[in-house]
């Protein structure tokens, strides 16, 4: 029943691997140019740098495949007249999407390791203490974003690509900007803080400055400092979004 989704994901992963491979290859050209030198100033945080890099690639891939239920809606008769319950079918789609996001993570990780290896820095890559929780957090961020987009699009026909584009603008620019601009405006700032709790990218910001994406929180934040708590919240949002998406998809009428 998920044959078409498998084909769709295979195509998406092929394009993704090609694009990420090309980007990494472009990185290699100047760094391997004759007389070029590469300085290792990572201060021992190579694993974290790699995880962030590949994590960001996986997040991009995750948002690209996050409207899989919505994509079916234009000709949903095709899948809804197959002998499988809609919620089971939707769950399979979501499971496949998550597996594909994990594959995207691994593909980028392998390519990144190859880039480091080409610099002769393979030995510098060591699993530090927080690598596992960070990996889960990054995947959680991708899952949270995926869940939000699925929930927003599963119950409507079309508009999936627009919602993906708007989500990037909202999460990467609008919400962080709103948070920073309202830092000294009581009332509005609380709203911004609350909204930022729903922003997957805000879970990649840390107070130690190691990971930082987006603008400064400019004060208070509902995002906990503990990585494991962040993992739990992002995964919970991902799960919640997926459940809402399935419910919305089942209710759709064509």
């Amino acid at each position, binding site marked *: 029943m998920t*044959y078409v989704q498998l084909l769709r994901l295979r195509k998406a992963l092929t394009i993704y691997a090609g694009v990420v491979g090309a980007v990494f290859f472009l990185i290699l050209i100047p760094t391997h140019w004759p007389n070029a030198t590469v300085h290792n100033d990572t201060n021992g945080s190579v694993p974290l740098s790699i995880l962030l890099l590949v994590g960001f690639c996986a997040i991009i891939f995750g948002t690209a495949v996050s409207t899989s239920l919505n994509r079916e809606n234009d*000709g949903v*008769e*095709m899948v*809804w007249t*197959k002998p*499988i*319950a809609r919620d089971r079918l939707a769950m399979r789609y979501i499971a496949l999407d998550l597996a594909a996001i994990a594959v995207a993570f691994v593909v980028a990780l392998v390519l990144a390791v190859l880039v480091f290896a080409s610099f002769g820095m393979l030995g510098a890559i060591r699993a530090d203490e927080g690598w596992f929780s960070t990996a889960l957090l990054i995947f959680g961020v991708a899952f949270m974003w995926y869940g939000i987009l699925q929930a927003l699009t599963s119950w409507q026909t079309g508009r999936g690509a627009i919602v993906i584009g708007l989500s990037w603008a909202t999460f990467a620019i609008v919400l962080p900007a709103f948070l920073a601009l309202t830092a000294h405006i009581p009332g509005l700032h609380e709203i911004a803080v609350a909204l930022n709790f729903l922003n997957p990218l805000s879970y990649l910001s840390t107070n130690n400055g190691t990971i930082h994406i987006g603008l400064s929180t400019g004060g208070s934040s509902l995002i906990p400092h503990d990585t494991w708590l962040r993992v739990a919240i992002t995964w919970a949002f991902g799960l919640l979004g997926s459940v809402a998406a399935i419910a919305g998809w089942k209710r759709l*009428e064509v």
Partner: protein
Amino acid sequence: MNSTPVIAIRDFTKRYGSFDAVSNLTLEVEPGSICGLLGPNGSGKTTTFKCLLGLARQTAGSMDVEGAPVGPQTFENLSYVPERSALYEWLTLADHLEFNRRSFKNYDAKRADELVSLFRLERKKKVGKLSKGQQTAVALALAFSIRPRILILDEPASGLDPVFQRVVLDLIIEAAAMGSTVLFSSHQIGQVERAADRVAILKNGKLIVDGTVDSLKGSEKVVEAIFEQRVPDVDGLADDPRVRRIERSGRILRAYVQSDSEGIVRRLNEFSPKNISILDLNLEDIFINAVGGEIAMAGGDGA
């Protein structure tokens, strides 16, 4: 009609806001029979199909297939061809057939091959590059490839040339002969007349005609009189209880007669027509009478 109907629609209503797309429709389709659903555009045919298949929710009434509302397992033996293509344009026919093979236990690869040859389809061509008629043919090949017990076909010959329209008709008749139950809609009244055992006509969401083709055709006769000059005024003919309706078009007068057509002929003979004859109704007459002469008689003087 003692057998349990395969498709049983009872008091079905579908409302969008304050608009009744279909209201109080009751329709049953017997096992192994072919039921043609006719009606002008917007009469509720597609809405009925969608609600029957669970693609939309009915506002009221019940819709059963093989004795129960449609559930996932119903589709193991039910094929649906929608009016608008629901195929994946970026996939080939071969991909669609593989999708069917993986989805249905009953998928018959040999039958699929026969259908692909019958419709002269290319397996490796992307569906998006096919014509509308070829896309319809792909949908039909997929539908018939699982040898379903029930076929629900919404405009199954849409976009096909006359040769393939005949092929589709033969497939429908053959499927019914093998025991399948078919409910289909079409604007090609001739096709419905040839294939269907039973006809239901919808207008503005209401069932206005329902019966076997033979009984409907036998219910009335048409007395057609052709005059040398314009049609004379035949006093009181329109009010004659034997006459349901009359049409005047140039020098031709047609009277749709429910009984004693010979008596009507005698009465019209008093006006010395050039020619007068009693004709059997065909399905097109029944359809036009039912949905309103104004649709099909544009330019004529419908009385």
